[in-house]
Protein backbone atom coordinates (compact mmCIF):
# COMPACT_ATOMS: atom_id res chain seq x y z
CA UNK A 1 0.00 0.00 0.00
CA UNK A 2 2.80 2.35 0.95
CA UNK A 3 4.46 1.56 -2.36
CA UNK A 4 1.30 2.39 -4.29
CA UNK A 5 0.92 5.66 -2.45
CA UNK A 6 4.56 6.55 -3.19
CA UNK A 7 4.14 5.88 -6.85
CA UNK A 8 0.94 7.92 -6.91
CA UNK A 9 2.68 10.82 -5.21
CA UNK A 10 5.57 10.73 -7.68
CA UNK A 11 3.12 10.57 -10.60
CA UNK A 12 1.16 13.53 -9.32
CA UNK A 13 4.38 15.53 -8.82
CA UNK A 14 5.43 14.74 -12.37
CA UNK A 15 2.11 15.84 -13.76
CA UNK A 16 2.31 18.94 -11.62
CA UNK A 17 5.79 19.77 -12.87
CA UNK A 18 4.78 19.38 -16.52
CA UNK A 19 1.64 21.31 -16.03
CA UNK A 20 3.62 24.31 -14.72
CA UNK A 21 5.68 24.69 -17.94
CA UNK A 22 4.38 25.78 -21.30
CA UNK A 23 5.61 26.27 -24.84
CA UNK A 24 6.18 29.55 -26.61
CA UNK A 25 5.19 29.20 -30.23
CA UNK A 26 5.09 31.69 -33.01
CA UNK A 27 6.05 32.88 -36.43
CA UNK A 28 8.60 35.41 -37.59
CA UNK A 29 7.91 37.33 -40.77
CA UNK A 30 9.82 39.81 -42.89
CA UNK A 31 8.04 42.82 -44.34
CA UNK A 32 9.42 44.45 -47.47
CA UNK A 33 12.04 43.42 -49.95
CA UNK A 34 15.25 42.00 -48.50
CA UNK A 35 18.60 42.84 -50.15
CA UNK A 36 19.37 40.67 -53.14
CA UNK A 37 21.54 37.64 -52.48
CA UNK A 38 24.84 37.36 -54.35
CA UNK A 39 26.07 34.49 -56.48
CA UNK A 40 29.14 32.85 -54.97
CA UNK A 41 31.06 32.93 -58.25
CA UNK A 42 34.52 32.18 -56.76
CA UNK A 43 33.32 28.67 -55.92
CA UNK A 44 33.40 27.76 -59.60
CA UNK A 45 37.01 28.99 -59.93
CA UNK A 46 38.09 26.18 -57.63
CA UNK A 47 38.15 22.89 -59.60
CA UNK A 48 37.37 20.67 -56.59
CA UNK A 49 34.69 22.90 -55.11
CA UNK A 50 33.20 23.79 -58.47
CA UNK A 51 32.76 20.12 -59.38
CA UNK A 52 29.73 19.92 -57.08
CA UNK A 53 27.79 22.60 -58.92
CA UNK A 54 27.74 21.76 -62.65
CA UNK A 55 28.57 25.32 -63.66
CA UNK A 56 25.78 26.89 -61.58
CA UNK A 57 27.21 28.60 -58.52
CA UNK A 58 25.09 28.73 -55.35
CA UNK A 59 24.02 32.05 -53.87
CA UNK A 60 24.39 33.46 -50.40
CA UNK A 61 21.26 33.05 -48.30
CA UNK A 62 21.51 35.69 -45.66
CA UNK A 63 17.82 36.50 -45.82
CA UNK A 64 15.72 33.32 -45.96
CA UNK A 65 12.33 34.86 -46.75
CA UNK A 66 9.37 32.83 -48.06
CA UNK A 67 6.70 33.87 -50.51
CA UNK A 68 4.46 35.14 -47.72
CA UNK A 69 7.28 36.77 -45.78
CA UNK A 70 8.12 33.76 -43.61
CA UNK A 71 11.52 34.58 -42.13
CA UNK A 72 13.97 31.75 -41.54
CA UNK A 73 17.25 31.58 -39.59
CA UNK A 74 16.01 33.83 -36.81
CA UNK A 75 17.13 32.83 -33.31
CA UNK A 76 14.36 33.34 -30.76
CA UNK A 77 15.33 33.10 -27.09
CA UNK A 78 14.54 34.33 -23.60
CA UNK A 79 16.59 37.40 -22.88
CA UNK A 80 18.78 37.55 -19.77
CA UNK A 81 17.96 34.00 -18.70
CA UNK A 82 21.26 32.43 -17.79
CA UNK A 83 22.71 29.66 -15.72
CA UNK A 84 20.05 27.19 -16.88
CA UNK A 85 22.05 25.51 -19.58
CA UNK A 86 21.57 21.79 -20.15
CA UNK A 87 24.21 21.86 -22.89
CA UNK A 88 26.59 19.39 -21.28
CA UNK A 89 23.91 16.70 -21.45
CA UNK A 90 22.57 17.69 -24.86
CA UNK A 91 23.59 15.81 -28.01
CA UNK A 92 26.35 17.44 -30.04
CA UNK A 93 25.34 20.02 -32.62
CA UNK A 94 26.86 19.45 -36.05
CA UNK A 95 28.38 21.90 -38.52
CA UNK A 96 29.43 20.26 -41.78
CA UNK A 97 31.58 21.40 -44.69
CA UNK A 98 30.04 20.03 -47.84
CA UNK A 99 30.37 21.27 -51.39
CA UNK A 100 32.79 23.84 -49.96
CA UNK A 101 29.99 25.47 -47.98
CA UNK A 102 29.23 25.38 -44.29
CA UNK A 103 25.94 23.61 -43.56
CA UNK A 104 23.94 25.01 -41.88
CA UNK A 105 24.90 28.68 -42.19
CA UNK A 106 23.13 29.64 -38.97
CA UNK A 107 23.17 27.39 -35.94
CA UNK A 108 22.20 27.78 -32.29
CA UNK A 109 23.38 25.74 -29.31
CA UNK A 110 23.78 26.00 -25.57
CA UNK A 111 26.77 26.89 -23.47
CA UNK A 112 28.70 23.73 -22.64
CA UNK A 113 27.14 21.85 -25.55
CA UNK A 114 29.54 20.11 -27.90
CA UNK A 115 29.80 21.36 -31.46
CA UNK A 116 31.18 18.86 -33.96
CA UNK A 117 32.66 20.30 -37.14
CA UNK A 118 32.91 17.79 -39.96
CA UNK A 119 34.75 17.94 -43.26
CA UNK A 120 32.73 15.97 -45.79
CA UNK A 121 34.67 17.45 -48.71
CA UNK A 122 37.49 15.81 -50.69
CA UNK A 123 39.62 18.91 -50.07
CA UNK A 124 41.37 20.48 -47.09
CA UNK A 125 39.74 23.31 -45.15
CA UNK A 126 40.83 25.36 -42.19
CA UNK A 127 38.23 25.95 -39.49
CA UNK A 128 38.79 29.47 -38.22
CA UNK A 129 36.63 30.86 -35.40
CA UNK A 130 36.25 34.51 -34.50
CA UNK A 131 34.89 34.63 -30.94
CA UNK A 132 34.31 38.10 -29.54
CA UNK A 133 33.75 36.79 -25.99
CA UNK A 134 37.20 36.23 -24.43
CA UNK A 135 36.17 33.10 -22.48
CA UNK A 136 35.02 31.43 -25.69
CA UNK A 137 38.34 32.28 -27.33
CA UNK A 138 40.33 30.93 -24.37
CA UNK A 139 38.31 27.72 -24.16
CA UNK A 140 39.02 26.96 -27.82
CA UNK A 141 42.47 28.52 -28.17
CA UNK A 142 44.14 25.32 -29.37
CA UNK A 143 41.68 24.93 -32.28
CA UNK A 144 40.77 28.51 -33.04
CA UNK A 145 42.35 28.13 -36.48
CA UNK A 146 42.62 24.43 -37.16
CA UNK A 147 43.57 22.49 -40.25
CA UNK A 148 41.10 19.85 -41.36
CA UNK A 149 42.30 17.60 -44.15
CA UNK A 150 40.02 16.10 -46.80
CA UNK A 151 37.46 13.80 -45.12
CA UNK A 152 39.57 14.24 -42.02
CA UNK A 153 38.63 13.63 -38.37
CA UNK A 154 35.99 15.83 -36.80
CA UNK A 155 36.90 18.89 -34.77
CA UNK A 156 35.10 19.52 -31.48
CA UNK A 157 34.32 22.81 -29.79
CA UNK A 158 32.44 23.91 -26.70
CA UNK A 159 31.65 27.44 -25.57
CA UNK A 160 31.35 28.39 -21.88
CA UNK A 161 29.70 31.77 -22.43
CA UNK A 162 26.77 33.03 -24.50
CA UNK A 163 27.62 34.80 -27.72
CA UNK A 164 25.60 35.94 -30.70
CA UNK A 165 26.59 34.97 -34.24
CA UNK A 166 30.13 33.75 -33.60
CA UNK A 167 31.65 33.60 -37.07
CA UNK A 168 33.21 30.45 -38.50
CA UNK A 169 35.19 30.82 -41.69
CA UNK A 170 37.53 28.93 -43.97
CA UNK A 171 40.46 30.99 -45.27
CA UNK A 172 41.28 28.44 -47.96
CA UNK A 173 37.81 29.07 -49.42
CA UNK A 174 36.90 32.54 -48.13
CA UNK A 175 33.23 32.36 -49.17
CA UNK A 176 32.70 29.60 -46.57
CA UNK A 177 31.00 31.30 -43.64
CA UNK A 178 28.73 30.19 -40.79
CA UNK A 179 27.49 31.84 -37.64
CA UNK A 180 26.83 30.07 -34.35
CA UNK A 181 24.76 31.59 -31.53
CA UNK A 182 25.42 30.27 -28.06
CA UNK A 183 22.59 30.56 -25.51
CA UNK A 184 22.93 30.02 -21.76
CA UNK A 185 19.65 28.16 -21.41
CA UNK A 186 17.58 25.56 -23.27
CA UNK A 187 14.91 28.17 -24.00
CA UNK A 188 15.64 29.03 -27.59
CA UNK A 189 14.63 28.03 -31.07
CA UNK A 190 15.66 28.75 -34.64
CA UNK A 191 13.00 29.47 -37.22
CA UNK A 192 12.85 27.22 -40.22
CA UNK A 193 12.08 28.28 -43.76
CA UNK A 194 8.41 28.50 -42.71
CA UNK A 195 9.29 31.16 -40.15
CA UNK A 196 7.91 29.06 -37.29
CA UNK A 197 9.50 28.42 -33.90
CA UNK A 198 8.67 26.48 -30.74
CA UNK A 199 10.44 26.98 -27.42
CA UNK A 200 9.49 24.07 -25.24
CA UNK A 201 8.82 23.69 -21.51
CA UNK A 202 9.32 27.29 -20.41
CA UNK A 203 8.68 27.68 -16.67
CA UNK A 204 5.96 30.18 -15.72
CA UNK A 205 7.10 33.75 -15.36
CA UNK A 206 7.52 37.13 -17.03
CA UNK A 207 10.17 37.28 -19.71
CA UNK A 208 11.51 39.32 -22.55
CA UNK A 209 11.51 37.28 -25.72
CA UNK A 210 14.10 38.36 -28.26
CA UNK A 211 14.25 37.50 -31.94
CA UNK A 212 17.73 37.92 -33.46
CA UNK A 213 18.63 37.95 -37.10
CA UNK A 214 22.27 38.37 -38.06
CA UNK A 215 21.58 41.08 -40.63
CA UNK A 216 18.13 42.41 -39.79
CA UNK A 217 18.91 43.02 -36.12
CA UNK A 218 16.89 42.18 -33.04
CA UNK A 219 13.39 42.79 -31.86
CA UNK A 220 11.87 42.02 -28.44
CA UNK A 221 8.52 41.44 -26.81
CA UNK A 222 7.60 41.18 -23.13
CA UNK A 223 5.57 38.07 -22.39
CA UNK A 224 4.13 36.13 -19.49
CA UNK A 225 4.14 32.37 -19.46
CA UNK A 226 1.54 30.68 -17.31
CA UNK A 227 0.37 27.13 -17.70
CA UNK A 228 -0.81 27.23 -21.30
CA UNK A 229 1.10 27.75 -24.55
CA UNK A 230 1.88 31.33 -25.47
CA UNK A 231 1.79 32.55 -29.05
CA UNK A 232 4.18 35.35 -29.99
CA UNK A 233 4.79 36.63 -33.49
CA UNK A 234 7.61 38.90 -34.66
CA UNK A 235 7.91 41.08 -37.70
CA UNK A 236 11.11 42.46 -39.14
CA UNK A 237 10.99 45.24 -41.67
CA UNK A 238 13.36 46.08 -44.47
CA UNK A 239 15.56 49.03 -43.42
Amino acid at each position, binding site marked *: MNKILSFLAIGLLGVGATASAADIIGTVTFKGTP*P*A*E*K*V*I*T*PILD*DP*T*CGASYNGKAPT*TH*FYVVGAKGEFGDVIVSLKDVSGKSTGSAAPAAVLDQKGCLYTPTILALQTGQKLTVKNSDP*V*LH*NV*HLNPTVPDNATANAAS*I*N*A*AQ*MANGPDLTYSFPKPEKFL*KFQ*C*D*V*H*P*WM*LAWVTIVDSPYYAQTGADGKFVIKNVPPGKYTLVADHR*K*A*GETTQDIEVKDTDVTVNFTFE*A*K
Partner: protein
Amino acid sequence: MNENCQTHYNPWLHYFAIATAIITFLLIGLGGLVTSHEAGMSVPDWPNTYGYNMFLFPISKWVGGVFYEHTHRLLASTVGLLTVILAVWFWRREPRRWLRSLGWLAVVLVIVQGVLGGLRVSLKMAWLGVFHGTVAQVFLVLTFCFALWTSRWWWQWGQSPAPALVSRGLRRHVLYATLLIFLQLMLGATMRHQHAGLAIQDFPLAYGQLWPDTSPEALARYNADRVEVVTETPVTAFQIELQMFHRLGAVIIFLAVVACAWQARRQLGGRDVLARLAAGWLALIFLQIGLGIETLHSNKAADIATLHVMIGALSLVTGALGCVIAFRRTGTAPDFASQTAISGGLTSPAGWAVNK
Protein backbone atom coordinates in the same frame (compact mmCIF):
# COMPACT_ATOMS: atom_id res chain seq x y z
CA MET B 1 84.20 56.74 -66.72
CA ASN B 2 85.97 58.37 -63.75
CA GLU B 3 88.59 56.67 -61.66
CA ASN B 4 86.15 56.01 -58.84
CA CYS B 5 83.73 54.29 -61.20
CA GLN B 6 86.44 52.31 -62.94
CA THR B 7 87.81 50.97 -59.69
CA HIS B 8 84.63 50.25 -57.80
CA TYR B 9 81.70 49.78 -60.15
CA ASN B 10 80.74 46.11 -60.11
CA PRO B 11 78.18 45.33 -62.83
CA TRP B 12 77.33 41.86 -61.49
CA LEU B 13 76.68 43.25 -58.00
CA HIS B 14 74.48 45.90 -59.58
CA TYR B 15 72.50 43.34 -61.62
CA PHE B 16 72.07 41.21 -58.53
CA ALA B 17 70.79 44.23 -56.59
CA ILE B 18 68.31 44.96 -59.41
CA ALA B 19 67.12 41.35 -59.41
CA THR B 20 66.64 41.45 -55.62
CA ALA B 21 64.62 44.65 -55.93
CA ILE B 22 62.39 43.26 -58.67
CA ILE B 23 61.78 39.97 -56.88
CA THR B 24 60.97 41.89 -53.70
CA PHE B 25 58.46 43.92 -55.67
CA LEU B 26 56.86 40.70 -56.92
CA LEU B 27 56.77 39.48 -53.32
CA ILE B 28 54.83 42.61 -52.36
CA GLY B 29 52.37 41.68 -55.12
CA LEU B 30 52.06 38.13 -53.86
CA GLY B 31 51.55 39.40 -50.34
CA GLY B 32 48.89 41.69 -51.73
CA LEU B 33 47.16 38.72 -53.32
CA VAL B 34 47.16 36.90 -49.97
CA THR B 35 45.23 39.73 -48.33
CA SER B 36 43.05 40.43 -51.37
CA HIS B 37 41.97 36.78 -51.35
CA GLU B 38 41.52 36.82 -47.53
CA ALA B 39 43.99 33.95 -47.35
CA GLY B 40 46.24 35.24 -44.56
CA MET B 41 45.17 32.50 -42.16
CA SER B 42 44.64 29.75 -44.72
CA VAL B 43 47.78 27.94 -43.50
CA PRO B 44 47.17 27.62 -39.75
CA ASP B 45 50.75 26.66 -38.83
CA TRP B 46 54.18 28.25 -39.26
CA PRO B 47 56.92 27.66 -40.18
CA ASN B 48 55.43 24.33 -41.27
CA THR B 49 52.59 24.10 -43.75
CA TYR B 50 49.75 21.79 -42.69
CA GLY B 51 52.32 19.80 -40.75
CA TYR B 52 54.74 19.47 -43.70
CA ASN B 53 58.16 21.07 -43.96
CA MET B 54 57.41 24.24 -45.92
CA PHE B 55 59.66 23.22 -48.81
CA LEU B 56 58.13 19.74 -49.06
CA PHE B 57 54.43 20.64 -49.04
CA PRO B 58 52.81 18.65 -51.92
CA ILE B 59 51.74 20.76 -54.88
CA SER B 60 48.44 18.85 -55.02
CA LYS B 61 47.48 20.58 -51.77
CA TRP B 62 48.17 24.11 -53.03
CA VAL B 63 44.45 24.83 -53.26
CA GLY B 64 42.37 27.94 -52.79
CA GLY B 65 43.87 30.44 -50.37
CA VAL B 66 46.67 27.99 -49.52
CA PHE B 67 48.14 28.60 -52.99
CA TYR B 68 48.64 32.33 -52.31
CA GLU B 69 49.83 32.02 -48.72
CA HIS B 70 52.21 29.13 -49.40
CA THR B 71 53.81 30.63 -52.53
CA HIS B 72 54.15 33.90 -50.62
CA ARG B 73 56.14 32.08 -47.94
CA LEU B 74 58.32 30.36 -50.55
CA LEU B 75 59.07 33.61 -52.39
CA ALA B 76 59.74 35.34 -49.06
CA SER B 77 62.34 32.68 -48.29
CA THR B 78 63.93 33.39 -51.67
CA VAL B 79 64.06 37.12 -50.96
CA GLY B 80 65.61 36.35 -47.58
CA LEU B 81 68.34 34.31 -49.24
CA LEU B 82 68.98 36.99 -51.89
CA THR B 83 69.26 39.61 -49.14
CA VAL B 84 71.84 37.59 -47.24
CA ILE B 85 73.86 37.06 -50.44
CA LEU B 86 73.70 40.79 -51.17
CA ALA B 87 74.82 41.70 -47.65
CA VAL B 88 77.74 39.28 -47.81
CA TRP B 89 78.67 40.58 -51.26
CA PHE B 90 78.65 44.13 -49.93
CA TRP B 91 80.74 43.06 -46.97
CA ARG B 92 83.33 41.41 -49.22
CA ARG B 93 83.49 43.88 -52.11
CA GLU B 94 81.79 47.17 -51.30
CA PRO B 95 84.17 50.04 -50.36
CA ARG B 96 81.46 52.30 -48.89
CA ARG B 97 81.12 51.43 -45.24
CA TRP B 98 77.64 52.94 -44.92
CA LEU B 99 76.40 50.67 -47.69
CA ARG B 100 77.92 47.60 -46.06
CA SER B 101 76.07 48.54 -42.85
CA LEU B 102 72.81 49.01 -44.75
CA GLY B 103 73.27 45.57 -46.26
CA TRP B 104 73.25 44.05 -42.78
CA LEU B 105 70.29 46.25 -41.84
CA ALA B 106 68.43 44.74 -44.79
CA VAL B 107 69.14 41.26 -43.43
CA VAL B 108 67.75 42.26 -40.03
CA LEU B 109 64.68 43.80 -41.70
CA VAL B 110 63.93 40.73 -43.79
CA ILE B 111 64.23 38.48 -40.72
CA VAL B 112 61.89 40.81 -38.80
CA GLN B 113 59.48 40.63 -41.75
CA GLY B 114 59.51 36.87 -41.71
CA VAL B 115 58.94 36.71 -37.98
CA LEU B 116 56.11 39.28 -38.17
CA GLY B 117 54.40 37.22 -40.86
CA GLY B 118 54.88 34.01 -38.91
CA LEU B 119 53.64 35.48 -35.63
CA ARG B 120 50.56 36.86 -37.35
CA VAL B 121 49.65 33.26 -38.17
CA SER B 122 50.86 31.40 -35.09
CA LEU B 123 49.51 33.94 -32.59
CA LYS B 124 46.37 34.49 -34.68
CA MET B 125 46.87 38.27 -34.52
CA ALA B 126 45.43 39.64 -37.74
CA TRP B 127 46.47 43.19 -36.77
CA LEU B 128 50.14 42.20 -37.07
CA GLY B 129 49.47 42.12 -40.80
CA VAL B 130 49.46 45.94 -40.78
CA PHE B 131 53.05 46.04 -39.47
CA HIS B 132 54.05 43.22 -41.81
CA GLY B 133 52.71 45.24 -44.75
CA THR B 134 54.41 48.44 -43.59
CA VAL B 135 57.85 46.91 -42.98
CA ALA B 136 57.56 45.33 -46.43
CA GLN B 137 57.36 48.78 -48.01
CA VAL B 138 60.42 50.03 -46.11
CA PHE B 139 62.35 46.94 -47.17
CA LEU B 140 61.30 47.40 -50.79
CA VAL B 141 62.57 51.00 -50.78
CA LEU B 142 65.90 49.79 -49.39
CA THR B 143 66.32 47.19 -52.15
CA PHE B 144 65.66 49.77 -54.86
CA CYS B 145 68.13 52.14 -53.20
CA PHE B 146 70.71 49.35 -53.28
CA ALA B 147 70.12 49.05 -57.01
CA LEU B 148 70.61 52.81 -57.39
CA TRP B 149 73.72 53.03 -55.23
CA THR B 150 75.45 50.17 -57.04
CA SER B 151 74.69 51.61 -60.49
CA ARG B 152 77.29 52.98 -62.91
CA TRP B 153 75.26 56.19 -63.05
CA TRP B 154 75.69 56.71 -59.32
CA TRP B 155 79.42 55.94 -59.45
CA GLN B 156 79.84 58.35 -62.35
CA TRP B 157 78.25 61.22 -60.44
CA GLY B 158 79.97 64.52 -60.83
CA GLN B 159 81.32 63.80 -64.29
CA SER B 160 81.00 66.66 -66.68
CA PRO B 161 78.43 68.09 -67.19
CA ALA B 162 77.76 68.38 -63.43
CA PRO B 163 74.13 67.88 -62.52
CA ALA B 164 72.20 71.06 -61.78
CA LEU B 165 71.66 72.08 -58.19
CA VAL B 166 68.38 71.19 -56.58
CA SER B 167 66.81 73.85 -54.41
CA ARG B 168 66.16 73.19 -50.77
CA GLY B 169 62.47 73.86 -51.45
CA LEU B 170 62.17 71.19 -54.13
CA ARG B 171 64.11 68.71 -52.03
CA ARG B 172 61.75 69.35 -49.14
CA HIS B 173 58.65 68.96 -51.31
CA VAL B 174 59.82 65.63 -52.68
CA LEU B 175 60.49 64.43 -49.14
CA TYR B 176 57.10 65.56 -47.84
CA ALA B 177 55.22 64.02 -50.75
CA THR B 178 57.09 60.74 -50.18
CA LEU B 179 56.25 60.77 -46.48
CA LEU B 180 52.60 61.45 -47.33
CA ILE B 181 52.61 58.42 -49.62
CA PHE B 182 54.09 56.31 -46.82
CA LEU B 183 51.33 57.45 -44.45
CA GLN B 184 48.74 56.69 -47.12
CA LEU B 185 50.18 53.19 -47.53
CA MET B 186 49.89 52.62 -43.79
CA LEU B 187 46.29 53.80 -43.93
CA GLY B 188 45.65 51.43 -46.81
CA ALA B 189 47.26 48.54 -44.94
CA THR B 190 45.09 49.27 -41.91
CA MET B 191 41.99 49.30 -44.12
CA ARG B 192 42.87 46.03 -45.82
CA HIS B 193 43.64 44.27 -42.54
CA GLN B 194 40.24 45.08 -41.10
CA HIS B 195 39.05 42.17 -43.26
CA ALA B 196 35.68 43.84 -43.61
CA GLY B 197 35.52 44.22 -47.36
CA LEU B 198 34.74 47.69 -48.69
CA ALA B 199 33.52 49.89 -45.86
CA ILE B 200 32.09 52.30 -48.45
CA GLN B 201 30.97 50.97 -51.81
CA ASP B 202 29.99 54.09 -53.75
CA PHE B 203 32.16 56.80 -55.27
CA PRO B 204 32.60 59.76 -55.47
CA LEU B 205 29.96 60.04 -52.74
CA ALA B 206 29.98 57.86 -49.65
CA TYR B 207 26.63 56.28 -48.82
CA GLY B 208 25.18 58.98 -51.02
CA GLN B 209 26.78 61.85 -49.06
CA LEU B 210 29.93 63.94 -49.14
CA TRP B 211 30.75 62.69 -45.63
CA PRO B 212 28.75 59.62 -44.56
CA ASP B 213 26.55 59.32 -41.51
CA THR B 214 28.20 56.97 -39.03
CA SER B 215 25.51 56.98 -36.33
CA PRO B 216 24.53 53.56 -34.88
CA GLU B 217 21.23 53.72 -36.78
CA ALA B 218 22.98 54.43 -40.06
CA LEU B 219 25.49 51.63 -39.46
CA ALA B 220 22.66 49.17 -38.74
CA ARG B 221 21.07 50.21 -42.04
CA TYR B 222 24.33 49.86 -44.00
CA ASN B 223 25.01 46.41 -42.51
CA ALA B 224 21.46 45.19 -43.05
CA ASP B 225 21.69 46.10 -46.74
CA ARG B 226 25.19 44.77 -47.34
CA VAL B 227 25.52 41.29 -48.80
CA GLU B 228 29.08 40.06 -49.28
CA VAL B 229 30.31 36.77 -50.64
CA VAL B 230 33.44 36.81 -48.46
CA THR B 231 34.23 38.24 -45.00
CA GLU B 232 30.70 39.48 -44.24
CA THR B 233 32.04 41.33 -41.25
CA PRO B 234 29.82 44.21 -40.09
CA VAL B 235 31.23 47.58 -41.07
CA THR B 236 32.11 49.99 -38.25
CA ALA B 237 32.31 53.77 -38.04
CA PHE B 238 36.10 53.49 -37.69
CA GLN B 239 36.37 51.59 -40.97
CA ILE B 240 34.20 54.11 -42.80
CA GLU B 241 36.30 56.98 -41.48
CA LEU B 242 39.51 55.17 -42.46
CA GLN B 243 38.34 54.99 -46.04
CA MET B 244 37.29 58.63 -46.05
CA PHE B 245 40.75 59.71 -44.85
CA HIS B 246 42.31 57.43 -47.45
CA ARG B 247 40.28 59.23 -50.14
CA LEU B 248 41.34 62.62 -48.76
CA GLY B 249 44.94 61.42 -48.63
CA ALA B 250 44.79 60.55 -52.31
CA VAL B 251 43.75 64.11 -53.20
CA ILE B 252 46.49 65.66 -51.05
CA ILE B 253 49.15 63.36 -52.51
CA PHE B 254 48.01 64.12 -56.04
CA LEU B 255 48.37 67.85 -55.41
CA ALA B 256 51.76 67.37 -53.72
CA VAL B 257 53.19 65.32 -56.57
CA VAL B 258 51.78 67.76 -59.18
CA ALA B 259 53.62 70.54 -57.32
CA CYS B 260 56.86 68.50 -57.26
CA ALA B 261 56.67 67.67 -60.96
CA TRP B 262 55.93 71.27 -61.91
CA GLN B 263 58.66 72.66 -59.67
CA ALA B 264 61.24 70.14 -60.92
CA ARG B 265 60.48 70.90 -64.56
CA ARG B 266 60.57 74.64 -63.96
CA GLN B 267 63.82 74.61 -62.01
CA LEU B 268 65.74 71.89 -63.78
CA GLY B 269 64.24 71.65 -67.25
CA GLY B 270 62.23 68.81 -68.74
CA ARG B 271 65.25 66.70 -69.73
CA ASP B 272 66.72 66.60 -66.24
CA VAL B 273 66.63 63.13 -64.69
CA LEU B 274 64.88 64.37 -61.55
CA ALA B 275 62.26 66.21 -63.62
CA ARG B 276 61.64 63.08 -65.66
CA LEU B 277 61.41 60.98 -62.50
CA ALA B 278 58.87 63.46 -61.09
CA ALA B 279 56.83 63.26 -64.31
CA GLY B 280 56.87 59.46 -64.08
CA TRP B 281 55.86 59.77 -60.45
CA LEU B 282 52.85 61.86 -61.40
CA ALA B 283 51.84 59.29 -64.02
CA LEU B 284 51.98 56.60 -61.31
CA ILE B 285 49.75 58.68 -59.03
CA PHE B 286 47.20 59.10 -61.83
CA LEU B 287 47.25 55.34 -62.34
CA GLN B 288 46.97 54.73 -58.61
CA ILE B 289 43.91 56.95 -58.26
CA GLY B 290 42.29 55.16 -61.19
CA LEU B 291 43.01 51.79 -59.61
CA GLY B 292 41.59 52.98 -56.31
CA ILE B 293 38.34 53.98 -57.98
CA GLU B 294 38.23 50.71 -59.91
CA THR B 295 38.80 48.78 -56.65
CA LEU B 296 35.56 50.34 -55.44
CA HIS B 297 33.64 49.76 -58.67
CA SER B 298 34.78 46.15 -58.91
CA ASN B 299 33.78 45.51 -55.26
CA LYS B 300 37.43 44.96 -54.37
CA ALA B 301 38.25 42.46 -57.11
CA ALA B 302 41.42 40.73 -55.91
CA ASP B 303 43.53 41.48 -59.01
CA ILE B 304 42.59 45.18 -59.08
CA ALA B 305 43.08 45.62 -55.34
CA THR B 306 46.48 43.93 -55.55
CA LEU B 307 47.55 46.10 -58.47
CA HIS B 308 46.55 49.10 -56.35
CA VAL B 309 48.89 47.82 -53.62
CA MET B 310 51.75 47.33 -56.10
CA ILE B 311 51.44 50.74 -57.75
CA GLY B 312 51.26 52.29 -54.29
CA ALA B 313 54.54 50.57 -53.46
CA LEU B 314 56.08 51.76 -56.72
CA SER B 315 54.94 55.32 -55.97
CA LEU B 316 56.71 55.16 -52.62
CA VAL B 317 59.87 53.78 -54.24
CA THR B 318 59.82 56.52 -56.89
CA GLY B 319 59.48 59.21 -54.24
CA ALA B 320 62.24 57.67 -52.14
CA LEU B 321 64.63 57.48 -55.10
CA GLY B 322 63.74 61.08 -55.93
CA CYS B 323 64.64 62.06 -52.36
CA VAL B 324 67.98 60.24 -52.53
CA ILE B 325 68.88 61.89 -55.83
CA ALA B 326 67.66 65.35 -54.74
CA PHE B 327 69.57 65.16 -51.48
CA ARG B 328 72.75 64.17 -53.28
CA ARG B 329 72.37 67.03 -55.68
CA THR B 330 72.31 69.46 -52.82
CA GLY B 331 74.84 67.46 -50.79
CA THR B 332 77.61 67.30 -53.40
CA ALA B 333 76.96 70.40 -55.47
CA PRO B 334 80.03 72.53 -56.07
CA ASP B 335 80.44 75.59 -53.85
CA PHE B 336 78.06 77.96 -55.62
CA ALA B 337 79.36 81.01 -53.78
CA SER B 338 82.94 80.57 -54.99
CA GLN B 339 81.72 79.82 -58.52
CA THR B 340 79.67 83.01 -58.64
CA ALA B 341 82.71 85.02 -57.42
CA ILE B 342 84.77 83.56 -60.28
CA SER B 343 81.98 84.22 -62.81
CA GLY B 344 81.72 87.91 -61.79
CA GLY B 345 79.35 88.53 -58.95
CA LEU B 346 76.12 86.72 -59.85
CA THR B 347 74.15 86.02 -56.68
CA SER B 348 72.98 82.50 -55.96
CA PRO B 349 69.19 82.03 -56.09
CA ALA B 350 67.64 82.28 -52.64
CA GLY B 351 67.14 78.96 -50.88
CA TRP B 352 69.66 76.94 -52.90
CA ALA B 353 71.77 74.69 -50.65
CA VAL B 354 75.48 75.07 -51.24
CA ASN B 355 76.79 72.28 -49.00
CA LYS B 356 79.55 69.99 -50.13
